[in-house]
């Protein structure tokens, strides 16, 4: 435990950014799980990785060292753009008379995963970057990152609190939602927000942490709550608690904190499934 407190001055921004990310993804994940679109998160992550790979290639090919085209900010913008584009593509390409949601999600995932490696393979340090994103390392967050994720979390929390019933109806029964006046713009807006959030978090925390924190806390909440609305409270709490515990335990045992957190959440989900099966027995 002392090791964690000793590391606080050096890694304070990293820890705070990760915990804000956990709360943010916990909130957004409820909508993803409620709509039974769990693998959307993985597909968006891969699309975002492809964006970063393309951004790095553009920087390496056309810009000199120190140019804005080689900056972290540029890569973040590209990551978010690809994530939002993928989320909108998945939302718009599936539906009545179109391809199934799973098929489009699978297509985006596989395209992102394969093309990212192909694009980056010849770039210096490119594969290292892809592996870093896939493996998740949250080391290196700045005070700006903390403020960005705190802001995103608060905006999301306020929006969810104000429109929680409409959001749940939209997730449960989109036809009914439209019939009572919930605008069809919500589909695109929800997809764009998911893309924005995933694009931002992938760049800072990597795929495993982002995807894990998006779906696992909401799945735990789904299995312990009796209604959907409380999931908006339980999921972020589970996400933050697990990431605090994961970061402390990872630090103490000198393991990767992000992977520790995701493994911990998997354990919690298994326990929740077990508890649920006993409840229904």
């Amino acid at each position, binding site marked *: 435990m002392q090791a964690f407190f000793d590391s606080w001055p050096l890694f304070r921004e990293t820890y705070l950014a990760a915990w804000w990310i956990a709360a943010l993804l916990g909130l957004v994940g409820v909508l993803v799980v409620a709509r039974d679109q769990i693998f959307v998160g993985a597909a968006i992550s891969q699309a975002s990785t492809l964006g970063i790979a393309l951004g790095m290639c553009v920087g390496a090919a056309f810009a000199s060292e120190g140019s804005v085209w080689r900056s972290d900010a540029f890569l973040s913008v590209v990551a978010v753009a690809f994530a939002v584009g993928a989320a909108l593509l998945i939302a718009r390409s599936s539906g009545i*008379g179109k391809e199934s949601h799973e098929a489009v999600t699978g297509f985006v995932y596989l395209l992102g995963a394969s093309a990212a490696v192909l694009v980056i393979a010849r770039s210096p340090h490119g594969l290292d970057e892809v592996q870093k994103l896939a493996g998740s390392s949250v080391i290196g967050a700045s005070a700006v990152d903390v403020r960005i994720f705190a802001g995103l979390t608060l905006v999301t929390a306020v929006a969810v609190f104000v429109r929680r019933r409409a959001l749940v109806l939209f997730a*449960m*029964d989109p*036809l*009914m939602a439209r019939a009572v006046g919930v605008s069809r713009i919500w589909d695109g807006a929800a997809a764009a927000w998911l893309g924005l959030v995933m694009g931002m978090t992938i760049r800072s925390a990597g795929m495993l942490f982002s995807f894990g924190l998006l779906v696992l806390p909401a799945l735990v909440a*789904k299995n312990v709550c*009796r*209604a*959907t609305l409380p*999931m908006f409270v339980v999921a972020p709490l589970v996400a933050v608690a697990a990431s605090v515990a994961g970061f402390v335990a990872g630090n103490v045992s000198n393991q990767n904190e992000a992977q520790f957190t995701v493994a911990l959440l998997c354990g919690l989900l298994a326990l929740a499934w077990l508890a649920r099966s006993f409840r229904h027995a």
Partner: protein
Amino acid sequence: MTTRGTPVERSEFLLRAVDLSAGHGRKTVLEGVNLSIRPGEFWFFLGTNAQGKSTLLNTLLGVLPKKGGAIETGRGLDRAAIGYVPQRCDLAPNLPTTAHEFVSLGLVGLAVDRAERDVRVRDALAEVGLGGLERKSYWAMSGGQRQRVLVARALARRPRLLCVDEPMNNLDLVTERNLLSLLARQNRDEGLTVVFVTHDVSVAAHFATHVALVHGRAADVGPKAQLLKPDLLERAYGAPVTIVPLVGMEPARPAPIGATV
């Protein structure tokens, strides 16, 4: 059911389609539909599968964008006054929800406080025969009870127009009859206007005041007595149709004088 908003003269329409074209994606399914739904009427949209009954309903409700023509709403009919029971509810498997939460979601878009919401949810569940089951899990209910919860969700809005889209798929006979009796009672006693989508002509012959026979990219529209005739039904269904009397069920409204089926 306590209030249904501002009273409307019977001659006024609630919802009117003028030369309406409807479809989904790039496909146009229906063209040139003209109909006026007035307060207290019990409409049935009839036809075989894939003719566009649900498409017509969803277009009238604005769930699907119209392809052409116009949809006019009468005085006092806004979103708040419309209840909708969809064909199915694509609820994610095992998403936790109680009857109370599920029905309360029907109040989205209405300005109701918590106390009013609880009253409406309790009343709506009682109306569909599920009083006292507010805290019961949706997933612990039978198929028939879930169907009634869907109806309760629509009734909680205290609508003036209730649209029900093929609710009898996968329902057993008793549940189906109970649902129809419930709607008939609401129509007869509360003056609730109902639009009901089904392929079942016998049910329409028993309960309808008006019918839209949907077939071949068009809809024949009018009072039941004018449309539920053997030749028109055979043309719409592509085969002779026998209307079976529903024994032991009272009609929604007294049949118009001289009406024949």
